[in-house]
């Protein structure tokens, strides 16, 4: 039972870290915080593996560590270095921190209400974590909506992706490796493509502001 509560505590830490990613002032800090969040995710997968006794989940956590804790932040930091002085420094988000935090809180609550009707194959005890993973989808969306900097919008995508990872682990802990490889590589390729796009845009338009970039269409 204690292990399930450990899973739940890690789920809560996932929310807190993702909130920190959303709130981070600088892009560098956001990248490091994202790495931290992925570390929590790895811990969650591993502890879930320990609780359910599924060896697949340990493999998952290992691949997640390699891709999400190391590779994705590295790609993002590298892009940041490439962009350098091409675009202006960090743009402030459109919502005030208080509103973003409250929004996150509301999203978590709504997701909890939504999942309270679902029966889990693993255990009813990790329902809060399922809510958290579902909420990550909305948190990611929030991040994309409220951030002006397209670079930070990438983090929104990454958060959504982390959420789906946890949902998958909770709903199908016995899923074959292939699925996991699909999820992991998908994330990497998407991040690489997005990073390249951001770098090109910064190089071309000298701005990362989504509002300004809208002028480019047509």
């Amino acid at each position: 039972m204690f292990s399930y509560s450990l899973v739940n505590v890690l789920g809560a830490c996932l929310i807190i870290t993702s909130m920190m990613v959303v709130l981070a002032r600088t892009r560098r800090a956001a990248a490091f915080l994202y790495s931290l969040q992925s570390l929590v995710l790895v811990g969650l997968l591993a502890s879930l593996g320990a609780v359910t006794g599924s060896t697949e989940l340990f493999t998952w956590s290992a691949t997640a560590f390699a891709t999400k804790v190391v590779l994705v932040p590295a790609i993002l930091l590298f892009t940041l270095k490439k962009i350098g002085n091409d675009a202006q420094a960090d743009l402030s988000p459109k919502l005030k921190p208080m509103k973003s935090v409250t929004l996150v809180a509301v999203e978590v609550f709504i997701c909890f209400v939504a999942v309270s009707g679902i029966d889990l194959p693993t255990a009813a005890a990790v329902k809060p974590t399922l809510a958290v993973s579902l909420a990550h989808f909305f948190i990611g969306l929030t991040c994309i909506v409220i951030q002006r900097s397209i670079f930070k919008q990438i983090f929104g995508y990454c958060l959504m992706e982390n959420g789906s990872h946890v949902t998958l682990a909770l709903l199908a802990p016995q899923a074959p490796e292939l699925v996991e490889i699909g999820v992991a590589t998908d994330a990497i390729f998407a991040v690489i493509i997005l990073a390249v796009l951001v770098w090109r845009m910064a190089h071309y338009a000298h701005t990362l502001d989504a509002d300004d970039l809208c002028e480019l269409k047509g």
Partner: protein
Amino acid sequence: MTIIIAILQAILLVSIAPLLSGITRKIRAKMHSRTGTSIFQDYYDLVKLWKRCEVKEGGSSIVSRLAPPIFLGSFILLATGLPLVMQACPIPIFGDIITILYLMALPRFMFALASIDSAGSYTAIGGVRELLVGVLIEPSLILVLFVMAVAASSTNVGIMAFSVANLSAYPFVAVVVAGVACAMACYIEMGKLPFDLAEAEQEIQEGPLAAYSGPSLAMMKLGVSLKQLVVASLFVAIFVPFGAAANAAPLELVCGLVAYLVKVLIVFLIASVIENAVMRVRYKFLGRYTWFVMGIASLSLVFLVIGI
């Protein structure tokens, strides 16, 4: 027995309050690369003021005379009720969170009235601002305490302290997040930088104190340092009760006392380091910070509700 502890801890808090404020001044000086005054400087100031002739301003009424004793007295009363060296409240009737919050409104009420009473514009603005800080911080503070009350199944601070010390306060993450929000709220309530609200005129900062002199000013100054200590102690009592005595055995009490002093010293050290590392915030933008604390507090509420 507990009554004696209550009286002793009130005396202790009153006597170390100027010392802690002296230590903060020393730290600030060190961080500014100055030698700074002695850590006992606040005591010297109080003694000096105590011997001075008091000047009563023409416009002021009895309210100005009453404010210093009420201000200091209310915080002394609050100091008796907090579970500091013990996990339980020495006087349970002062240990209710609602009583504590509303008892803190009395000195604020008198402080602001005295500031208007002096008929000066700077003093009054200072007093009104002091009130508004209270208004802004109250919702987050009560929300945090609400979460704790539900987590510990009691509104009594002593029982909250007990359940945190035993790690039996149920939704663990909710309590931790509530602790973070409470620390932020208490920091703002202590009136440290960036929330000391000095804007342009130095007189606004010391607010209502501008019209005071002599022993009344000494009493107000002592009251302000005691307020900081009481607010910091409230946080320590609820969220960091570790080390406090579980029963009234003398050895445990001594350990509890030492633990309390160490905890409160650490809190003040951290607070003064933060104070000297940040810029002063414009009064108008104060709401951003307090609403942010409110956001954290509501996050802890959600964690409480979903049970993690």
